[in-house]
């Protein structure tokens, strides 16, 4: 059975995505170190900011989503992830609660852009015209589960590798990613 699982076509299709977050959760993911070897013996990484894949692929088994939903691009990717993934995991506090990314929620979007780009020191990078290149900010930064249904959460800022491994190894074994109390704390 184990040998069969290791064949490429029976491997679990794993994806990780990066929305409104600092990438610290992905750094912690890389801190799995030698457990990454066990992970990739059982799973193929089919989409990730640490792999150069442009489009979110279909038929993904498990997707870990770092970051909160802060702009229209995040919203679109989140919906695509949900449509193409069997299991979606909120990966880290920004995805779970909004966390630091949502600190701007007390400000309106216009006030926010003014405070950061117009009233700040130095020259403005661009004029006051509407920028057609950058994705528009949402009025409020939202945790992932308020945008799409989420199947599991890995809290932490960032979640330490032990938490990630506990959740991911359970998911790879087809079990629920329920974390023990010590691994459930935010922050």
């Amino acid at each position, binding site marked *: 059975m184990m040998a069969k699982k290791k064949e490429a076509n029976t491997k679990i299709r794993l994806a990780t995505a990066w929305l409104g977050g600092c990438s610290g959760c992905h750094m912690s993911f890389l801190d799995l170190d030698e457990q990454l070897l066990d992970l990739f013996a059982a799973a193929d990484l089919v989409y990730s900011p640490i792999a150069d894949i442009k489009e979110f692929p279909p038929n993904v088994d498990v997707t870990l989503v770092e970051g909160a939903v802060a702009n229209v691009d995040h919203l679109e990717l989140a919906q695509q992830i949900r449509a193409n993934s069997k299991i979606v995991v*909120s990966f880290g*506090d920004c995805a*779970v*609660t*909004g*966390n*630091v990314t*949502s*600190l701007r*929620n*007390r400000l309106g979007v216009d006030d926010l852009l003014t405070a950061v780009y117009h009233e700040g020191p130095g020259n403005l990078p661009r004029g006051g015209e509407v920028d057609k290149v950058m994705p528009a900010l949402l009025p*409020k930064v939202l*945790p992932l*589960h*308020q945008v799409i249904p*989420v199947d599991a*959460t890995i*809290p932490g*800022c960032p979640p330490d590798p032990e938490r990630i491994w506990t959740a991911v190894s359970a998911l790879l074994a087809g079990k629920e990613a329920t974390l023990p*109390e*010590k691994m*459930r*704390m*935010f*922050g």
Partner: protein
Amino acid sequence: MSVITLTLNGEMISGLTGQTLLEVIREHGVELPTLCHLEGISERGGCRLCMVEVNGRMTAACVTKANEGMHVNTHTEKLQNYRRMILELLFAERNHVCAVCVMNGHCELQSVAAAQGMDSVRYDYLSPELPMDASHKRFVLDHNRCILCTRCLRVCDEVEGAHTWELKGRGIHSMVITDLNGPWGESPSCTSCGKCVQVCPTGALYDQGSTVAEMEKKHDFLPWILGGRGKKEWNW
């Protein structure tokens, strides 16, 4: 004091008249979560986490006296569900951003949420704009982290005897204030004893200069002071 018998989660137990349900329940090894309760100061019954079912009716165990013949259930599905809702509402009401809080890793709200299995918040975060008061030379008040447990009010009034702290407003607009809502640093009644800071369960009150996860609080001064008072060991 006379002995009473009651039923706790289907088992017959005994307690003493005058004890609260919370005391009796904890004495029998059943853990109930609390946030506003603190040994040594009066009960408030405000956080509602210690709610139990007594003969099918919900009541806060910290403010209910144990009585003969009570049938008490502590962990029914309904109660556990309400406990999670209460915690989620606390997180949604103000800006509890654990990752950048001075009490990260030592906070009672954070640990109670983890213990009760709160994995996310189902309600919309209100993200209110709330001030901080850093006018005191030793301490800081951050309303963003305050859960209105009023431990600070009670310890200041009942143990320090200063009654610097009060509540203003109602419901979701309630805020803790010092004296007549002036800056803490200008409070004529505050003795700067720091008891309020030590009993605060979250990062709402902390020492000046603390940064993320640096603040830890100690409650052990309370039984020490109160015990000494009770035994008349303080003669000055």
